[in-house]
């Protein structure tokens, strides 16, 4: 307890020496605010290191895997598969800036920025962060159910082949051609006729 009081006293002495109030509005993020400004120096605290602000989505990089949806804490990101398209709706009024989407995104399409002054005044305000975008889906060749987004399919069928050993590359390419565009249910049903079991690799 004594330690705590000493710390408090130090803080009080420190604050009596200089102005502790921070500038508002903060000013230019380009300026190095860690340099002393008022006497011994108040600091510009708007953007500290690792501040988690509003997430920024890059539509170009996103492959549509929906990993971000499955980890999102507050259901900010929602997906729906309608008519061969996967529709993403992102309602940042719900976001809690936890950063899990950034952690999980395999394509680095989401980055948490340091923007945090987001106050908006109504549902049709300019500042309201409601994002909507679509990804084309591959439909199952047999039953027509959605399989995966086109971009994800392209990226990952390549990656899978590349990461496999020399020995199995040809075989797995063949398998992807045979069953890559089938939905999970059809793949399971036709596993025997298409000879998809992994035992042939050993």
């Amino acid at each position, binding site marked *: 307890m004594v330690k705590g009081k000493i710390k408090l006293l130090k803080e009080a002495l420190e604050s009596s020496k200089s102005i502790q*109030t921070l500038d508002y509005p903060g000013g230019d993020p380009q300026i190095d605010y860690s340099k002393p400004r008022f006497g011994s120096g108040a600091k510009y605290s708007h953007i500290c290191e690792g501040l988690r602000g509003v997430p920024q989505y890059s539509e170009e990089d996103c492959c549509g895997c929906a990993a971000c949806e499955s980890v999102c804490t507050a259901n900010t990101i929602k997906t729906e598969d309608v008519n061969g398209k996967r529709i993403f709706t992102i*309602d940042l009024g719900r976001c809690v*800036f936890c950063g899990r989407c950034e952690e999980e995104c395999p394509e680095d399409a989401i980055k948490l920025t340091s923007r*945090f002054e987001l106050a908006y005044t109504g549902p049709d305000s300019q500042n309201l962060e409601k994002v909507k975008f679509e990804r084309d889906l591959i439909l199952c060749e047999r039953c027509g159910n959605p399989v995966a987004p086109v971009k994800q399919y392209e990226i990952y069928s390549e990656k899978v082949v590349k990461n496999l050993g020399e020995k199995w590359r040809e075989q797995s390419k063949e398998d992807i051609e045979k069953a890559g565009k089938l939905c999970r249910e059809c793949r399971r049903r036709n596993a025997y006729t298409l000879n998809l079991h992994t035992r042939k690799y050993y």
Partner: protein
Amino acid sequence: MGLKQKARLYSPWVFHAHCSGCNGCGIEIAAALNPRYDPERIGVTLHNNPRHADIMLVEGIVAKQHVPFLKRTYDQMPTPKAVVAIGSCAITGGVFKPDDDKGPSYTQGGPVDRIIPVDVYVPGCPPKPEAIIDGVIKAAIILSKRE
């Protein structure tokens, strides 16, 4: 701008209504009102009585038990008045609202704008003190335009 409007713009008094949030936003509001961020330089003072306040800061999901009290507090404020919803709880239900199709949590009386008219929304869980000051400034500008 008349004298009254000018006075309202330059010294809005705020009242903090804690409506069943987790208190994270409450602590940030308390932080926003301390000398470090010093909203008194823009005339903002915290007041504990809604009858003297111009702007109400509402935080939390507003539990069902809390709905009539929030309404009554709102009615007690003199006109013109403005309401700022602080945090994702107050805006949409945030982490306490599982999903739209599954319905809200059984204790939830709805986001604030279903109960009283809201003028400014400040997203974040909790929002930074500066973001709260930003919201209050926007509300003061809205307030000064009202009769």
